[in-house]
């Protein structure tokens, strides 16, 4: 059943074109096309999962391109990592699309939305299926494009349009690194196939450079420090998009990429170390910002950055299973959180948590599922987040770098803190907004419930009770894994400490005076710094280049033409029309000729 895997992305792709071409005529039905397509993909993914042999395999569909004599084939890799991603993407994707039917209902560009989503689904599925970096890059850009289009979905809003562009360009910076990494790998390693990653041998510095360049792509896509700035802005898109692309799937592609090229990183400790450090920085930084954010989606966005950082940290610390496990669980509960947030926004038409409050009674299903998701994120046992986060903490601890471990712990603590803060502000206390909140329709709550189910129980796949099924599935070669009980306790304690702190401080959240922690509130001034460092100079440089082009380069051209014209004018004015001048020229010409010829003749000894 494995070799049907390449059909998985085809269905959403067909759905995309159907919706683009016939969108106008399909109307609301286009949603069913998209949902249907991804449901079929989900079924196929499950079939592939069930048919997966140990270790998986890869197969080649067709030779595609030849670069420098090395063929790049359209190859499919189907192993546990791919299958995990397939399942996550198709299941979460399908649920979110169902949710979107309700959430996007009545939007004038309803069909366009589903077209984009389908395109995204197919790109994302392609991304996880292909067996080499080059093809991955193609789909990598594809998902980036969809992200951009969907962030800017409500392009009438200037902020949305700007955010879409920011998302694409910022990730493109990382992607350019990835491209260069691919080129480097191709030129020194002669292979881009993931299967060959562990056997490529080349000079150490070059390989480290290649690994780092590839990681740069991951940094961009997974919104890691220092390329994280686009993700909070990307929240301008529809919330369902945020859930799908900017929480569950696309942003996780960076982590996927690192996991995919893991042999490359493990072979070069420096590269792995970088991954860990970047992850740690991102995790702590984003978590601290999330503590001060007031926009419900921004909180979740920073949380996403933070969690992705945690995954990176896990991978960088050698915790392959932890990183991938967290990737999977995070996809579900973060999608849940975003959809919950969407449901809330749908009801109250604001995103500011200070303007919410007391929603628990009005929106029971949303609130309960949201809280489940939040607890999972906070890492409270025995929800799914607990298991995966615990795995990461264990790995970091075993890695031995105390700084990284402190970062991981801090992140856990802060995560629990800001999620509690969010829940307290949004769902409890007095209703502070003049809005009539109501529960969302079933088409929106149903996916919430399903996702909550996953958030609750998915973690058990990696628990001792399931004999660490996930770990054995994803990395069978790592042998026996055991739960570090001490770490589990510690992790729970940290989470609880975070929650408790939030409870203690709950009175101060509303009365908090802005500016107390200006550095963090302003997101460490990243936007301002980048604006001053890159955006403005870019504009200024462009203007300067254009002016240079106009004045200097073109000026030279026009100058030459003017010179010729002046010269022409001058030679024209030789023709005075005066007989004497002409006669003089004639006689003078004779004289000069005689002199010149005589002189030359003398010099050359001809006469």
């Amino acid at each position, binding site marked *: 059943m494995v070799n049907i895997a390449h059909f998985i992305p085809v269905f959403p792709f067909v759905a995309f074109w159907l919706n683009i071409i016939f969108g106008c005529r399909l109307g609301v039905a286009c949603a069913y096309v998209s949902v249907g397509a991804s449901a079929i993909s989900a079924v196929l993914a499950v079939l592939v999962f069930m048919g997966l042999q140990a270790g998986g395999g890869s197969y080649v569909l067709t030779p595609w391109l030849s670069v420098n004599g090395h063929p790049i084939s359209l190859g499919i890799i189907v192993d546990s990592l791919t299958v995990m991603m397939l399942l996550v993407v198709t299941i979460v994707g399908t649920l979110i699309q169902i949710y979107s039917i309700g959430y996007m209902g009545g939007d004038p560009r309803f069909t366009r939305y589903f077209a984009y989503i389908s395109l995204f689904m197919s790109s994302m599925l392609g991304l996880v299926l292909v067996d080499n970096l080059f093809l991955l890059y193609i789909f990598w850009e594809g998902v980036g494009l969809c992200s951009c289009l969907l962030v800017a979905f409500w392009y009438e809003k200037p902020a949305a349009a700007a955010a879409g562009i920011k998302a694409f360009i910022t990730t493109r910076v990382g992607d350019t690194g990835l491209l260069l990494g691919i080129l480097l790998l191709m030129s020194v390693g002669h292979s881009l196939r993931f299967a060959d990653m562990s056997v490529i041998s080349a000079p150490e510095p070059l390989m480290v450079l290649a690994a780092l360049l590839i990681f740069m792509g991951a940094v961009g896509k997974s919104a890691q420090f220092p390329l994280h700035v686009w993700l909070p802005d990307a929240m301008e898109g529809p919330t369902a998009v945020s859930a799908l692309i900017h929480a569950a799937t696309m942003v996780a592609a960076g982590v996927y990429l690192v996991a995919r090229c893991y042999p490359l990183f493990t072979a070069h400790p420096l590269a792995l170390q970088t991954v860990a450090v970047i992850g740690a920085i991102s995790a702590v930084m984003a978590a601290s910002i999330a503590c001060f954010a007031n926009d419900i989606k921004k909180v979740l966005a920073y949380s996403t950055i933070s969690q992705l950082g945690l995954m990176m940290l896990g991978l960088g610390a050698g915790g392959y299973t932890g990183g991938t496990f967290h990737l999977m669980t995070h996809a579900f509960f973060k999608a849940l959180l975003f959809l919950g947030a969407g449901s809330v926004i749908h009801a109250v038409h604001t995103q500011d948590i200070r303007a919410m409050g007391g929603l628990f009674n009005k929106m029971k299903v949303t609130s309960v599922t949201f809280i489940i998701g939040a607890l999972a994120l906070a890492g409270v046992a025995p929800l799914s987040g607990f298991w995966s986060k615990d795995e990461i903490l264990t790995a970091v601890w075993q890695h031995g770098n105390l700084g990284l471990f402190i970062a991981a712990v801090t992140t856990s603590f802060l995560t629990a803190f800001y999620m509690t803060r969010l829940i307290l502000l949004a769902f409890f206390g007095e209703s502070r907004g003049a809005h009539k909140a109501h529960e969302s329709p079933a088409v929106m709550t149903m996916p919430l419930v399903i996702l909550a189910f996953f958030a609750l129980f998915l973690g058990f796949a990696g628990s001792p009770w399931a004999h660490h099924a996930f770990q054995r599935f994803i990395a069978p070669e790592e042998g026996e894994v055991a739960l570090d009980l001490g770490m589990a306790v510690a992790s729970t304690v940290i989470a609880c400490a975070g929650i408790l702190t939030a409870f203690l401080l709950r009175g101060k959240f509303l009365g908090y005076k802005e500016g107390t922690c200006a550095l963090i509130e302003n997101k460490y001034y990243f936007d301002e710094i980048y604006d001053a460092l890159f955006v403005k100079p870019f504009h200024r440089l462009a203007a300067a280049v254009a002016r240079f082009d106009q004045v200097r380069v073109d000026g030279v051209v026009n100058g030459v033409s003017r010179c010729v014209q002046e010269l022409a004018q001058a030679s*024209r*004015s030789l*023709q*005075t*029309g*005066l*007989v*004497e001048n002409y*006669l*003089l020229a004639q*006689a003078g010409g004779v004289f000069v000729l005689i002199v010149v010829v005589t002189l030359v003749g003398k010099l050359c000894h001809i006469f």
Partner: protein
Amino acid sequence: MIPLGHFVILSAVLFCIGLFGVLTQRNAIRFLISVEIILNAANINLVACNRYLAPANAEGQVVSLFVIGVAAAASVVGLILIISVYRQRKSVFLDDFNLLKW
């Protein structure tokens, strides 16, 4: 006998006088006269050289007759043209022939 060199020098002097006249005279008639002087310089050359260098045939002398004839024709045509210009402009000064320029 007068050496050939003297004739040639005379001719050269005449040539220079003629050329000087051509370049300095502003009057069309004087210009015409100057050109005639150059032609006469040439004629002196022809005749003298014929006599000294190739007395066997009369090539130079014959040519000089042709030159005189043709020069006369040229002068006639020149005078006609000058007159027709004079009729229109009442001037034979070369500086006034200045409609066509640039």
